């Protein structure tokens, strides 16, 4: 038992690793700040395209979304990071993460926005258009707000998944929180720094997970 505490909950080692891990936390937050808005924007575009009345637009977009839902994010990231330099495109770990996350997130957010847009009755758009709003205005002011409200739990849930996925960036040596914690782990031969990082992830994500459960229960009744 003591050996366990020594290996996983060593406060001395945690204190020493704290500055390194916090440094990584800022990078994690920076990644989130870049990839979440990008993914949502891409997802909205994907959703609109996949609901297009034109088959030539709709089908390729559904194929795009399904393709990126079928491929594991880590495979995509390594493909972008390790594969593209072979084709003469040298990219930084951060760019690789941004590109891979953009493709993956657009697919997932796209499915959510699609469900949201479908959940708003067509009468809403027709009524909005009949009052003289343009198609863009009716989307932005009438349909989209209702769509987002209907799928808010899924949007939050997917955003939690995105924050968790940023830990994959450690595999391409981007110095985010898990990478920094693992660095400290390899120097100290002790897992406590990663437990510290886990604690920080929990502090950020636990409230979100609770919120999602509340939503799910409210929806259910």
């Amino acid at each position: 038992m003591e050996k366990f505490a020594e290996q996983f909950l060593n406060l001395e080692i945690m204190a020493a690793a704290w500055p390194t891990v916090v440094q990584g936390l800022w990078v994690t937050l920076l990644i989130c700040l870049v990839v979440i808005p990008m993914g949502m924007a891409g997802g909205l575009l994907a959703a609109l395209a996949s609901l297009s009345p034109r088959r030539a637009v709709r089908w390729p977009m559904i194929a795009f979304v399904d393709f990126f839902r079928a491929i594991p994010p880590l495979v995509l990231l390594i493909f972008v990071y390790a594969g593209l330099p072979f084709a003469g495109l040298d990219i930084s770990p951060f760019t690789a993460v941004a590109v891979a996350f953009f493709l993956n997130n657009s697919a997932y957010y796209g499915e959510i926005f699609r469900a949201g847009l479908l959940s708003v009755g067509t009468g809403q758009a027709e009524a909005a258009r009949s009052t003289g709003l343009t198609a863009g205005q009716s989307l932005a002011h009438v349909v989209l707000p209702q769509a987002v409200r209907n799928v808010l739990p899924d949007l939050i849930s997917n955003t939690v998944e995105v924050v968790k996925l940023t830990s994959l960036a450690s595999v391409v040596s981007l110095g985010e929180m898990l990478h920094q914690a693992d660095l400290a782990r390899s120097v100290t031969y002790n897992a406590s720094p990663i437990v510290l990082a886990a604690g920080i992830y929990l502090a950020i994500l636990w409230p979100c997970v609770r919120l999602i459960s509340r939503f799910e229960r409210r929806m259910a009744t």
Partner: protein
Amino acid sequence: MTPLERFLDTFFNAAVLAKYAPAILQGVWVTVELSVLIVLSGIALGGLLACVRAYRVRLLSFGIVIFADIFRALPPLVLILIVYFGLPNAGIFLSSFVVLYAILTLILAAFAEEILWAGITSVAKGQWEAARSTGLGFTQALLWVVLPQAVRLAIPPLTNRAIAITKMTALGTVIGVPDILNQATTAQSFSGNASPLMLAAVAYVLLFMPFVVLSRWLESRFAWRKV
């Protein structure tokens, strides 16, 4: 070499593909084996926990909620690294395959428990009462009347979650599980060519695409008809 030739040589090099295809095929079996094991045991464990929670024993329910919250909030890679690198120093030696299997099973169980529990609570109270009034015991009412209705509601989200988590078997490559991605990155560094990565990506898409299409179908099949 023209740019097109160079591109083909880099990503679709026939010699490299032929040489490393057997290794990647071996990886496919490891990925499939892990995925099947994780889906079966994760959903079984999650279902068991959701049922235990239905008895509303306060201490048990509290423990289940804490378990489900932690395993839903933590990134899988964090859990994998803690267990894989931490346990040996504490005197417990597990293979990377077992670590990956155990962690992903627990994560899937946590999500499955929440999804099934949401399903159980959404079954109308009258269903419980009607079942009990016909003489069924609590456990019988749960298993024969409530759970089947809960499962029906849970199938689309459960399918999506199971796909997302089996895709994470690729994380095993970080701790040396010889799955598709691991075989491909090894082959890529030996051959100095990106074709093995392309082959791995194709293998994953072939493996998971049917399930993604299935989940799309399930969603439309089980969706609440809007009025």
